[in-house]
């Protein structure tokens, strides 16, 4: 399938976000980590295992009328480090973003350790996850110091 056919497969969006170059088969993880369930009524199109001139096959996700915040883009680095994020306004790419791990996630991800104090509702605490190694990557909860790997269930704070 050519890139053009891919374009036809998923319709263009007027306003919103296109997440391109997701590793083939991993689009659902992308939706998961962004907390996109479809229950909020947004129009979401997902194309899986389509051909790509750059990486063989890939997945593409388009979300209409939602503009990913930069910290949400950071989060994508955990499941789709090669993805590109395009913010679309009036059918045009208004902004292109590279996905990159930040030094820390503050108030973005929750610690997967249920007995960690950062998961106690009544304490005034902003969950903070430090990225201790961007290559592997390795993440660590600032509070309980538990090492978190991207294969752990990553919850949205």
């Amino acid at each position, binding site marked *: 399938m050519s890139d053009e056919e891919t374009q036809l497969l998923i319709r263009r969006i007027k306003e919103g976000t296109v997440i391109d170059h997701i590793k083939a088969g991993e689009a659902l993880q992308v939706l998961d980590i962004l907390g996109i369930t479809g229950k909020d009524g947004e129009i979401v199109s997902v194309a899986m295992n389509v051909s790509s001139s750059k990486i063989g096959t890939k997945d593409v996700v388009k979300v209409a009328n939602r503009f990913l915040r930069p910290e949400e883009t950071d989060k994508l680095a955990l499941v789709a480090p090669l993805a590109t994020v395009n913010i679309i306004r009036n059918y045009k790419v208004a902004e292109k973003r590279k996905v990159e791990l930040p030094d820390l996630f503050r108030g973005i991800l929750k*610690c997967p350790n249920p007995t960690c104090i950062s998961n106690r509702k009544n*304490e005034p605490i902003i969950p903070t996850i430090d990225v201790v190694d961007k290559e592997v990557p390795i993440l660590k909860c600032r509070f*309980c110091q538990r090492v978190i790997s991207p294969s752990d269930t990553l919850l949205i704070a």
Partner: protein
Amino acid sequence: MDEALKGRDLISVLDLSGSELDALFGIADEMKKYAKSGTDLLKNRVLATLFFEPSTRTRLSFETAMIRLGGNVVGFADPSTSRMTTGETLADTIRMLDSYSNVIVMRHRIEGSARLAAEIATVPVLNAGDGSQHHPTQTLTDLYLMRSEFGHIDQLKIAILGDLKQTRSASSLCFGVSRYKGVKLYLISPEPLKMKQEVKDYLEKSGIEYIESTTLDQYLGDIDVLYVTRLQKERFADPSDYEKYRGSYIVTTEMLQRAKKGMIVMHHLPRIDEIPLEIDYTPNARYFEQAANGLPVRMALLSMIVG
């Protein structure tokens, strides 16, 4: 007085560098002189002890250290006897004691609570054990004993025996020895109570050589330090496992005869039956000295952080 630690929190032993550990141990040597007579170094200073989980030894050691330094102590030993903590958030309790004191010592069963306290408090927070793998002042005491005994910590061969999965002194010691060169660890535990993978990952990353085994016997001739921890029945999912393993984790005089000359036996106390009373009279026993060292070490720490 060394100023490097002034105002700092101590949540994990890894908060201290190798040279900071050296400085602290040097001051602990000095503090031995004042362990009975006392000084007025921390006169008019207040230590708050927040023991949300009881730990008589650690608390008494901190309180005595503060009193010997001429300071005062406020706090509680067990929250069930104190109405103060019922229904209140940890953050609110910390804020209150922060306004009363110059340093806070805290033990809490919830993982990460010491770090939370440190973020909220304006005064330094010392972790006396939280639900995680850290118990820095126990490790300082342990390292200090090894240093006094052997004159160095580099190159020591240290076996840690027992429940390595749930004993915070054991994981904390693994972090502590990573500040030294050429240390070799022997992690001896029943299969279900092995050291947590992330601690082993840390050892690997830090270049600390270690061996894991369920039996100690074959290493007795090699090790300098035998660090014993409690093996508790309730920690086994299957009670028959406890019966199966128990015998191999009790120190015997016969074992000590086969051990390397000069090997010392350590234990963070209190013990149950893993070190029988007859071991107390052997030349290998060092756990009472180890416990006693907690005082000068905590005096050194408090004086450096609050001083």
